[in-house]
Each structure stands twice: as structure tokens, then as C-alpha cells.
């Protein structure tokens, strides 16, 4: 279990994490979502005792990380796949980690096999692809067989097979009763693995909820209507309280009415409809809507 309470971290005048509170429970995968620069990595580093918060606390199993005895037995973390000396072999890297963390050296061979690097264990990490380095980082996180695991953007650089592998890995770790926290800036990817979501923007909590509840609440659906009489139809739809936007030369995007209601309305008034299509807002859309105000670095619109 990870408990983050009123966590605040400032760098000079920039507040990276601002009064953040959430709990990560065992037995499920918790997705930690936010745009780039929203404070996810800072929060993870604070949980691992690498950064000293300006206020608040982050506890692992009720204790500050720095007070844990041999912490690799409690928490495994993948922070940055590049965090390996390029001249050191995968095996030497993990062996040094195991020795310092008081973990049986036999675990090194086991985790290397587990992540699929058994054949290249003797190779220097500098020769690894980004995907292989991610796997090496994950091997390091699993070394101490820890009940709590943190993964910072683990699918970066993985090929499709690797992405499937890590989804399966995270689900099985949670199924074994472990606490699994996975950060990502990709909502759709996270929704495929996570059971629970913690969404942050500009260091503040935006949502802390189950994935399904999140979609029910925020997944507004739109209806696309293609009609040669769209102006007349738009007026009628607005009179019924719907929000209507024009798209292209023939299409309306309607929010607030169902496909059935729109179809019936058009039929009663004798207006031709060439296409009527419900479209569930994508997870990415929901996420963008939620975090739009909190995006740190926003590109300028191109005027279209």
C-alpha cells in the first residue's frame, strides 16, 4: 500500500506537486495518469525517498521509504530505462543491485529469464535497444520480489509484443496481491491494464476512481448526423436542448440527445438523414478534456 498525503514539492517558483493526496491499494493495477510535466515522476521520486517534499508525506506500508530496511525487498521501481551504465553488462548491473539490496544473487538469473533477457545477460547495456533496457529496468524492479512495484512509463519504446507482455505482467503482479502503480501519459493504454485511475494535472488531483466509473462519468457520447438539410435540423435539435456543432459541409455533431431521439425528430419533420452514427468519446478525448486546463506546455492552435 502507498499513501500519499497532501504532498507538495516545489522547484524554485515552480510547484511540481501541489497538495496531492491518494492511496494505492494492493491487488489491483493503479494507473497514474497525467500529461507530461504534470508531476507524475516527481511524485514517484518522492515515494522512493529520492526527493524531500516541501510539505506532506508519502508512505510505503505506513513508513517513509528512507526508514525501510533493505527497501528492495519492499518496493521495486522502474524509473528510467536509460538509468544503466552503458558499459556494464545486464548481469553485472543486476548483480551489483542485488548485492547492495541484500538479495540472493540467484535472483539475478531468474529475473533475467523472466523478462526475456537471459540470452543477452552478458552483453553491455549500451548495445541494448530501448525496449531491452525497459526490460532490464523491470528486471531490476522485480529483483527483490517486492510487494509494491512502481513503473514510470514502462511501455515507452516497447514493441507490440513487449507491450502485451508488460500488460500481462502488471495484471499478474496485481493478481498475486501486490500493489502496482503504473504511470503513463496515454489514457487508452492505461485503460487496458488498470483497474483504478489516479489522474493528475499540474500536480493536483483531478480524479481518483475506478476505470469503469471514470468512463461512465466522463465518457459523453456524441452523435454524428449527415443531412442535406442540416441547418433546419440543427435549429430543431437546439430547440430540444442539444448542443450542435457543424463539421465539414454536411455533418452535425450533436451532444445531449440519443441516436433514437434525433432519428425520430428528423422523421417527424420530414427531413432527410443520410447518416446517423453514435460515437463514444475516446478515452484520449476524455483525458484531454479533463487535463486541458492543467497542461503545462500547450502548443498554439494552428487556426483551423
Amino acid at each position, binding site marked *: 500500500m502507498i499513501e500519499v498525503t497532501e504532498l507538495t514539492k516545489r522547484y524554485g517558483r515552480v510547484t511540481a506537486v501541489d497538495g496531492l493526496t491518494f492511496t494505492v491499494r494492493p491487488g489491483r493495477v493503479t494507473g497514474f495518469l497525467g500529461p507530461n510535466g504534470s508531476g507524475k515522476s516527481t511524485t514517484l*521520486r518522492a515515494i*522512493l*525517498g*529520492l*526527493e*524531500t517534499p516541501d510539505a506532506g508525506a508519502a508512505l510505503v506500508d505506513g513508513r517513509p*521509504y*528512507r526508514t*525501510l530496511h533493505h*527497501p*528492495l525487498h519492499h*518496493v521495486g*521501481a522502474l*524509473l*528510467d530505462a*536509460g*538509468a*544503466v*551504465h*552503458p*558499459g*556494464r*553488462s545486464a548481469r*553485472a*548491473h543486476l*548483480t*551489483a*543491485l542485488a*548485492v*547492495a*539490496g*541484500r538479495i540472493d544473487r540467484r535472483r539475478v538469473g531468474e529475473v533475467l529469464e523472466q523478462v526475456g533477457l537471459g540470452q543477452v545477460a552478458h552483453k553491455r547495456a549500451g548495445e541494448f535497444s530501448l525496449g531491452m533496457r525497459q526490460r532490464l529496468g523491470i528486471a*531490476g524492479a522485480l529483483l527483490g520480489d517486492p510487494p509494491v512495484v512502481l513503473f514510470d512509463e514502462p511501455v515507452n519504446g516497447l514493441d507490440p509484443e513487449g507491450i502485451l507482455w508488460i500488460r500481462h505482467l502488471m495484471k499478474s503482479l496485481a493478481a498475486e496481491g501486490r500493489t502496482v502503480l503504473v504511470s503513463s501519459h496515454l489514457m487508452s493504454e492505461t485503460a487496458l491494464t488498470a483497474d483504478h485511475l489516479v489522474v493528475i494535472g499540474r500536480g493536483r488531483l483531478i480524479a481518483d476512481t475506478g476505470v469503469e466509473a471514470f468512463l461512465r462519468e466522463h465518457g459523453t457520447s456524441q452523435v454524428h448526423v449527415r443531412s442535406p438539410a442540416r441547418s433546419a435540423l440543427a435549429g430543431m435539435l437546439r430547440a430540444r436542448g442539444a448542443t450542435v456543432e457543424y463539421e465539414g459541409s454536411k455533418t452535425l455533431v450533436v451532444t445531449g440527445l440519443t441516436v433514437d431521439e434525433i432519428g425520430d425528430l428528423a422523421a417527424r419533420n420530414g427531413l432527410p438523414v443520410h447518416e446517423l452514427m453514435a460515437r463514444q468519446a475516446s478515452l484520449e478525448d476524455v483525458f484531454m478534456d479533463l487535463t486541458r486546463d492543467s497542461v503545462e506546455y500547450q502548443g498554439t492552435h494552428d487556426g483551423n
Partner: protein
Amino acid sequence: MGTELLTAEWIKLRSVRSTYLSLAAAAVLVVTVALSVATTTADDWAAMDPRDRSSFDPVSAPLFGAIFAQLVIGVLGVLAVSSEYSTGLIRTTFATTPQRRKVLLAKVAVTTALALVAGGVILGATFLLSQGIMANGHGGVSLSDPGVFRAVTYAVLYLVIVTVLATSLGAITRSTAGAIAVLFTLVFLLPQVLDHLPQNLRHDLMRFGLQRAAASAVSIHPQVDTFSPTVSILVCATYAAVALALALFLIGRRDA
């Protein structure tokens, strides 16, 4: 401290090529310079002016290459810390061992032990080699001559001190280039600055420069404007002690 940290740092040090390259480069530098100095001296000895003979230092002159070797060994110490910052590995290291001071002390202990062994072997062998060339009345001395054993020992000790200094600088600057720049400044530039001070200040302060203190420590002839060899090596050690204390102070306070 717990030997697991020492073992872990030793594994890290011996599993990268730069360690072996640094040691090999240091050995080649020291031996090449010594061979050159010793053969030239042995050839010229009979024809040398008596005053040149008496000012010739048979220990420190052949070991002149150590002036460059100290930087090579120093880089090894710098890299033991700075390479972890440049790759981000330091976060994994500190997450594994939140007692950061112990991590730094383990790194210092391991790099220093390596410098002691490698420095002892390289400088000891080079001493014997060069004295062999200059033996039989060509300027050579033996370990049992006054001050000789002390000078060779202090030469090794000086390499060890520079390694402590360099490793600490790696932790203070958290950057390979930064640490090497500071090391270079302390070893070469600061003594130059002291050398250009007004006469009265220069006279008092030059002896605190690393270069001059090291020269005094490894010389068998008394030097002008220096402390005794033992005080001089303590002056050198003070640089390392201050740097290490500052590194230990900072490492617990900064975010990783």
C-alpha cells in the same frame, strides 16, 4: 558499514572497461616517462656537472609521469560517482540504499583501495625499474637510502589522496566534466595562481599548493618554500578531507 555496499561498488567498478583503460593508461604513462628519464640520466651521469648531480632527485625525477597519472586515476574516481548521475543510475542506487553517505563512503573506499593497490604496484615497479637502470654509480639509489622509502610511499599515498579528492568532487559537482575541471584547477591552476602572488604572500602560500606539497612529499632533497615531506602530505590530505566532508554534507541534502 556492511560489506555488501563495498562488494556492490566493487562489482560496479570492475564491470566497466573505463576502469581497466584508466589503470593501463596510468601504467603506460608512468613507466614510459621513467624509462626515458632513467636511461637519459644513466647515459649522461658521468659527464654531468657536480651541481646538477647533487640537485638531481633520483626518486621523484623518474616518477615525473605520476603528475599525469594522477589525473587518469582521478578520472576513475570521478566516474565512479558522476557516471551514475549522468545516466540516472544514482536514483536506483539511492532507492536501493537510502543511506546516501554510506553509498559515497563505499565508493570512496573502493576507488581508493584500487588506487592504493594499482599505485603501489605501478610506482613500486617503476621505482625498481628506474633504479635498476641508474644503478652502479649512474645516479640510482636504493630503498634503504635515507628518505627513499618515505618518498616512494608518499608518492603512492598522494595518488590515494587524489582519488579521494576526485571521487568527492564527482559527488559535489554531479558531473564528469565539472569534477574533472575542478580537479584540474586544484592540481595545476591553483598552484600557478599562488606562484604569481606578490613576493611576500607567494612565499607563505605556495607551500599550500597541491603541486608543491606533492613535490616536497616525494622528494629526497629538501625543497625551498615548502613544508617538510610529512606536513606536505598532510596538506594534500587536507584538500581531500575538505572535499569529502563537503560531499558527505551535500549528498544527504540534495534531491536525487
